[in-house]
């Protein structure tokens, strides 16, 4: 099973927060991705990492959290009892409590859009491609290739190679 996820390229994020607004539109007024500013010098978006060994899935007492075909960690609302354990064990602080329905809620990588063959809304809208959706290893290979190409170019110009990736 190829695991597809949202890859975040911090070096390209312009903090426009289009991903947040798109996510909010697709999820009834609730955004599951957030953009944070770092020392007024850079920004980074953060959403659920849909971890390979997801603590939230392991700890869920009712099996409300499960993995779908793309490898996304989804929440079955009928099974959730709102015990908050998933939120407590998540190292990124992702699952939140929906206090109206008294169950947890989290990023579903836009399950409804993936069902129609579309990308998650945050990725689809990201103006600078700071968010990419795909198999992690494929994306890494692509990044390596880009870096190598640029490194060769830079060497030709006799310049120092930047290790920042850009």
């Amino acid at each position, binding site marked *: 099973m190829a695991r597809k996820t949202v890859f975040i390229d911090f070096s390209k994020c312009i903090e426009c927060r289009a991903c947040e607004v798109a996510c909010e539109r697709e999820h009834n007024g609730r955004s599951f991705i957030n953009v944070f500013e770092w020392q007024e010098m850079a920004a980074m978006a953060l959403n659920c990492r849909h971890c390979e060994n997801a603590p939230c899935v392991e700890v869920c007492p009712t099996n409300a959290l499960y993995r779908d075909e793309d490898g996304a960690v989804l929440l079955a609302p009928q099974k959730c009892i709102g015990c908050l354990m998933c939120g407590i064990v998540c190292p990124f602080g992702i699952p939140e409590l929906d206090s109206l329905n008294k169950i947890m809620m989290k990023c579903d990588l836009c399950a409804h859009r993936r069902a129609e063959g579309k990308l998650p809304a945050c990725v*689809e809208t990201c103006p600078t491609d700071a968010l990419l959706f795909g198999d992690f290893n494929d994306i890494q290979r692509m990044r390596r290739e880009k870096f190598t190409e640029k490194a060769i170019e830079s060497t030709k110009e006799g310049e120092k190679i930047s290790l920042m990736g850009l």
Partner: protein
Amino acid sequence: MEEKLTPVVCPYCGVGCRLYIKTLDGYPTGIEYAEDIPSISNEKGKLCPKGNAILEYLLARDRLKKPLKAKEEGKFVEISWNEAIREVAERLKEYSKDDPDAMMFFGSARTYNEPNYLIQKLARMLGTNNVDHCARLCHSSTVTGLKAVFGAGAMTNTFRDIEEANVIFIIGHNFAETHPVGFRYVIKAKERGAKVIVADPRFTRTAWFADIYLQHYPGTDIALLNGLIHVIIKEGLYDEDFVRRRCTGFEELAKIVEKFTPEYVEEITGVPAELIVQAARTFATAGKGVITWAMGITQHTHGHDNVRLAATLSAICGYQGREGCGVSPMRGQNNVQGACDLGVLPNVFPGYQAVTDPEKRKFFEEFWGVSLSGEIGLTVIEAAHAIEKGKVRAYYVMGENPVISDANTNHVLKALRKLEFMVVQDIVPTPTMEFADIVLPAAAMPENEGSLTNTERRVQWSFKAINPPGEARPDWWIISEIGKAVGFAGEGAKGFSYTSPEEVLREINACTPQYRGITPERLKKNLAGIHWPCPSEDHPGTRVLYRDRFLTSDGLAHLAAVDYKGPAELPDEEYPFILTTVRYVGHYHTLTMTGRSRSLVKRWPEPLAEIHPEDAEKLGITTGDWVKIETRRGVYPIRAKVTRSVKKGVIAVPWHWGANVLTNDALDPVSKIPETKVCACRVVKITEEEARELIKAVPKVIPEVEVVKG
């Protein structure tokens, strides 16, 4: 039940992004990204936060749904369309009979080409050239400046050229925040290895991506540009062949920049001399370069000269008439280019044909079948002054909001109160509407159709996706009805009897040389649109301007030799800080649309005045404190944000919420743009109670309009 996807153009900025609106039986249910339409300006259907939220303002609860008539200031009664049109037409007819120049018409960069063409046609057929729009406040200096150097006031290239450039010089332009989707192409170029130079008084999000960042003081652009040109000429890095073949005025330029040594420029601008040298070398030796700018260059009393110098810098490096090169003044509204092209300016007919040129005037006199005025009309800011002198007595405002957008708000308010008659045609209540006598409810862009022109000169057709609320009507329909009611009942171009926007566009094709081949049929078939100039129906459109010659009379680029002059108002003992205005990525201009978008207001709830930590410490200000900013023209209460992104001595304030009560309405002598980017101010810490009291005096961006019974 039928779900439908309709391709529209985003109603916000000049990038002109395509998207689909999803509807169910004519009611909007969502949006979809236009990733399947090839070669559009927003590659892969990318959208910024505003584009993602467009349904929210369309569904705003306070949309105007019925024509209104004022009972007293700010109180209205509902009337029928018949009554409204009759009353407006009768009043306009009266003014047209006694003194046509007592009327002032505002076109709009926020509606399609067709209504813009019609409003200037109506104004001119009524006998006045007093017609202008908000381009006066943003890129009028670009239009005059580029016309002086290259012969036409528009971006010379497209986004693809930004992507293909080897160096991108971004000056006075917070590209990443003002045009996030356009900034995509800068990032792509950078990924390829292109260098990015950013010059801005603020360390903006755009500056995060700079290889070289020049932080100059607001209003010192001429010195900075002259400094760069000085180094390029002195080190022989300019394109000698290009200058010899295609430019004129190089000797004067070389003479005037002589004294702008990097050291002298460092004194004026505060940018280290070695950075100026490094930037000049990087820019001139890249082989392919683009310069982009926006309000930081144009909104100055020397905006015209700033633009001419930026164009000169591009020309001496030979960065014109080729792919991957050019100058890109980035337009703010999705149709500000179109409104300019179609003559919503006091000095030109559609297609930049001067009203003072007897031959052009004769053409339009025959075309429209009336005699026309050959006198240049009033600009936006001049009109406000003319009201005070009693020269202008009536305003027709289509989709504009001068109370928030014009410099020196208090003066504008005083002027609007003196008007005899004012018509406001808009989609929602605005602070300007409070002074209106008649209010005409308009359909928003996705609620009707038409063509519009983005910053790259790309003309696109936007289709009707949803029905307008209540009795709101398309702008082209409203103006045609008024035209007919005034009595212009002639056939074809001689009257106003249109049945569709397509008919209007065909008339535009017939009288605007640049748009001749851009027919409604072609636009509807090709969703990616056509770049003007497009002189005939089989012409593919023009991506890069000036391949062989410039559009000046002699075909050469007229290089500008300009000596340094500072801003109109500099800090002194009484007002020790420099005030500059900025904007946020999630808000748009006067907040008429984004202020009604829940998801945007949630993220960008209020303005924050940026102040340098050392200044803040002296004044005892910490982030979140209330301060009042005072200038010679007004007082503005705002909360402070202490940040190193501004230079010491500079205060940056977002203008969306009405900060123009502070700004200076001193004008550029050529372009008549007010200097909203620099003035002197002082800052005082105040309590929250004091702030609440002061806020009452600032016009409310989202006013509550009272509709009373007959």
